[in-house]
């Protein structure tokens, strides 16, 4: 028996992981394509994003806020790109699982990158929100009761930051798993 031999039970689970990973990868690619299609439809067919429009800025409380609008507009262009990269990396992660690379170095690096993207996205979204804090809110209030949502009344949700931290933590745990696997291979 060598290190790559696994028990039937573990083999069945690994097989299940591979099948689910394939389905998940296809689903994530679908989401990625939909996001790209949606963004290109908004940006190309409906013209420039609404925040770049000076008239829109002028209709706000003060014209001198236009630089803030511009800043927020540039940042709001970056966040969908981060979302696309996140989907792409997630699809890549599922591809690694599909190949059976559960505790490989590149898999762990991929998870860490996903966590970091979450944190970066949270920083950008919070900055946009703080820049546009004085702008009028939509006429019909939307109520929200999210489980992982930590808004302390500042309008900044700390939930995504916590999710980013948890993803990085999972990467560290997987790294521990990798070390056990390496030790196991050396022992056998």
């Amino acid at each position: 028996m060598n290190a790559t031999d696994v028990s039937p039970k573990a083999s069945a689970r690994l097989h299940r992981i591979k099948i689910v990973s394939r389905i998940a990868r296809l689903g994530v690619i679908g989401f990625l394509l939909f996001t790209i299609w949606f963004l290109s439809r908004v940006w190309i067919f409906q013209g420039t994003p609404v925040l770049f429009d000076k008239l829109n800025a002028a209709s706000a409380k003060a014209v001198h806020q236009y630089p803030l609008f511009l800043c927020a507009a540039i940042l709001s262009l970056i966040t969908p790109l981060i979302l696309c990269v996140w989907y792409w990396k997630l699809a890549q992660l599922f591809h690694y699982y599909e190949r059976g690379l559960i505790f490989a170095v590149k898999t762990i690096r991929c998870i860490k990158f996903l966590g970091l993207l979450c944190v970066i996205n949270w920083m950008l979204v919070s900055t946009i929100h703080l820049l546009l804090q004085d702008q009028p809110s939509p006429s019909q209030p939307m109520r929200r009761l999210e489980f992982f949502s930590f808004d302390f009344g500042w309008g900044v949700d700390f939930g995504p930051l916590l999710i980013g931290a948890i993803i990085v933590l999972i990467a560290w745990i997987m790294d521990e798993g990798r070390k056990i696997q390496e030790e196991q291979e050396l022992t056998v």
Partner: protein
Amino acid sequence: MKNFQNQAKIIKVSKNIRSILFAGLVLWMVSIPVFLIPFIFLPKEKMPSSMICEIGGRVLLASLGLVVNLKLFRFFDRLKNGHLFDAQTVGNLDAAGRWWIVLWLFQGLYYQIEYQFFGHVMVWGGSGLFAGLILIFVSWLLKEAQELQEEQELTV
């Protein structure tokens, strides 16, 4: 040395997340009796059926939130104590994922009732389902590591 550093980081971060989840646990525990206050103090004749439905829904939502929170709290508590790959740790994560999916389903039902009968516009996305499925998937991966560790211990 590197191995020790990684463990220390996991324990440190788990401790912080556990503290946040503990605060959440307290909040859920407080919110359930708060939602029940009208039930206790208002006479039954003054309570319309719509109000009973709304309060009942909120209590159930909070209870499900409490269960998910509790499972996650236990998971991070075990991580904090250094039990990375054992049956209980993995079981807690798996249970958190399953309960999160139940919470998501109930949220959808509750929001629909709120919209139909009271006209409240509530945001219901797929994030709960996504989070639940991801937790279950991660617990499968941890099960793999758990088995590796058990084999390792048997070999040694």
